[in-house]
């Protein structure tokens, strides 16, 4: 497979799963934008431009999956914290179930193919 094709597929997958990565991080507890964005951008293979996560957060807030609150910080101006709503928690749980199935199926098929390749040689 040409690398461009694989890259495109992965980029689509990243785009589709990124918001659930955000929800999953917030599922562990509230975070402020910078903290959340840095954690995501440092995750191996996600390869996100940090700035693009803010529009995503804005959409999640609009869709009532997360909400925000301002809290004082020890070092500097107040920070805007994001936390999951009940709807966000449900969306995350739904996705997690589906994702596990999806991942297992893809893994199984990919491994199947590898075995097939090995058998031919």
């Amino acid at each position, binding site marked *: 497979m040409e690398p461009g094709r694989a890259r495109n597929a992965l980029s*689509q997958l990243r*785009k*589709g799963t990124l918001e659930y990565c955000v929800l999953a991080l917030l599922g562990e507890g509230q975070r402020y*934008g*910078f903290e959340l*964005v840095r954690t995501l*951008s440092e995750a191996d293979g996600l390869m996100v*431009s*940090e*700035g*693009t996560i*803010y*529009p*995503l*957060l*804005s*959409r999640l807030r*609009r*869709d*009532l999956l997360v909400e925000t609150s301002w809290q004082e910080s020890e*070092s*500097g*101006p107040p*920070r*805007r914290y994001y936390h999951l709503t009940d709807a966000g928690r449900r969306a995350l749980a739904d996705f997690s179930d589906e994702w596990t199935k999806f991942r297992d199926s893809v893994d199984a098929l990919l491994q199947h193919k590898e075995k097939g390749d090995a058998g031919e040689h």
Partner: protein
Amino acid sequence: MQVNTDPLVEDYMRRLEAAAWALPDYRREELLAEIRAHLDEALRQVPAGDEAAVRSVLARLGSPEEIVAAAADPMPDGQFVPYPVPAPAPETNGLAIASLLFGIFWLGGIGSLAALILGYRARREIRRSAGFQRGSSLATIGIVLGWIGVALLVMAAVAAFFLLAASSTTTGTPTPVASVVPVPSG
């Protein structure tokens, strides 16, 4: 509140603001505020005057155009999902109903004319409402009835004309009026 006066940062913010012009005001404000807060936070960890570090912070953020594109392209597969505002149930256009009623009640041709005028206006309004009004078929029925009414009116007029013409030729009198005016005798 720490104010960033780094020219690279200010230039970046200006480009972001320019790129975000098409976003709704409150989303643009929100985006600019969040990016500004992000930069303040990131640059607090950077030694003052370290230009390479500032550039690296901006590079990690991504280009302003890329960020705005992410704000404008809501869903992963590019399909636009509008704000979850419950769509108002489409209501029937009042002119369409009126057109249908006038079409039914001929009213000696006046109803038909009204049905036509109202029917065409209704269809235009419904078309412009982009799905928020219905009743296009009612208006169409009104228009059809209106044209039938007009056609009947024309046919009646033509028929009346021929009848009058025929009656004038059979009686041989120049005007049909003569036949109703009693000829004085004696």
